C-alpha cells in the first residue's frame, strides 16, 4: 500500500492550518502580551489564506485590511496603553488553567465527534471569477436594512468608545 502523493493545495492547506493552530496556541499561551499580539497577526493571515481556499477573495482581503490593519493595531495600542512603562515584562498570568484545559478539550472533543459523525451533504459550487459584485448587490439590495443598522451600530460604538475613554473632566 503506497502512500499517495498529496496534491499541492492539500499540502498548502494543512501547512496553513498548522500555522494558524500554532500561532493561535502561542496567542493563547504566551505570557508576553506583545508576543501574543504578534502571533495573532499570523493567525489572521492564515485565516485569510483559508478564505482563499474557500473561494472568498473579497472576505480574505477584508480580513487582511480590517483585522490586520485595524483591529490588531487597536489591540497593540491597548497593550501599550494598559501596561506601565516601568513594568518591563509585559506579561499576563493565567488562572483556572486546569479546569479551563479540561473543559475546552472536552468541548473540542465533542465538536470533533459531531463534525466527524455527521453525514454532510456537499454540493459543489462553481468557482467564481469575483465575489465583489455579488456581495455589493446583496449589501445594497437584500441586506440594505441590516447594512444601515450595522452602520449606525458602528457609529454608536465609535461615539461610545470616545465617550468611555476620554479624560474625565474635573467637577
Amino acid at each position: 500500500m503506497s502512500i499517495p502523493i498529496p496534491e499541492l493545495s492539500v499540502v498548502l492547506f494543512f501547512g496553513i492550518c498548522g500555522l494558524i493552530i500554532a500561532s493561535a496556541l502561542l496567542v493563547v499561551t504566551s505570557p508576553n502580551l506583545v508576543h501574543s499580539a504578534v502571533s495573532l497577526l499570523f493567525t489572521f493571515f492564515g485565516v485569510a489564506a483559508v478564505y482563499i481556499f474557500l473561494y472568498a477573495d473579497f472576505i480574505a482581503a477584508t480580513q487582511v485590511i480590517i483585522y490586520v490593519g485595524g483591529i490588531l493595531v487597536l489591540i497593540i495600542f491597548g497593550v501599550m496603553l494598559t501596561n506601565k512603562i516601568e513594568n518591563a515584562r509585559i506579561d499576563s498570568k493565567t488562572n483556572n488553567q486546569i479546569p479551563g484545559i479540561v473543559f475546552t478539550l472536552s468541548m473540542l472533543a465533542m465538536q470533533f465527534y459531531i463534525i466527524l459523525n455527521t453525514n454532510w451533504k456537499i454540493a459543489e459550487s462553481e468557482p467564481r471569477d469575483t465575489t465583489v459584485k455579488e456581495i455589493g448587490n446583496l449589501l445594497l439590495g437584500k441586506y440594505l436594512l441590516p447594512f444601515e443598522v450595522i452602520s449606525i451600530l458602528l457609529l454608536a460604538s465609535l461615539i461610545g468608545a470616545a465617550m468611555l475613554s476620554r479624560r474625565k473632566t474635573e467637577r
Partner: protein
Amino acid sequence: MNYIQPFLMLASILFCLGLYAVITRKNAVAILMGIELILNSANINFITFNRFGAYRTLDGHVFTIFVIVLAAAEAAVALAIIINLFKNIGTVDVDQAKEMKG
C-alpha cells in the same frame, strides 16, 4: 480540497483556543484576543457552509462582513472599557475587578 471536515475542524480548534484564552487569561487585552479568535472561527464556518452548501448566492459572505464590522466595533468599545478600567483600578487584570464579589 473537496472536504468540509478539515475546515470545520480548524474552526473548532480556533474556537476552543479562543475560549481557553477567554477563560484562563487574566489580562483583559488577552481576553479580547481570544474573542477575536472565536469570531474568526465563526467567520470560517460562515464561509465554509456558504462554499459547500447548495447556495447560489453569497449570503454567508455578507454575514461575515457584518461580523467583521461587529468585531471592529466590539474591539473599539472593549478597548475603551479596558482603558477606563486601567484608569480606575490601575490594572487590567480582570480578577482585580471584582467589585461584584458577594
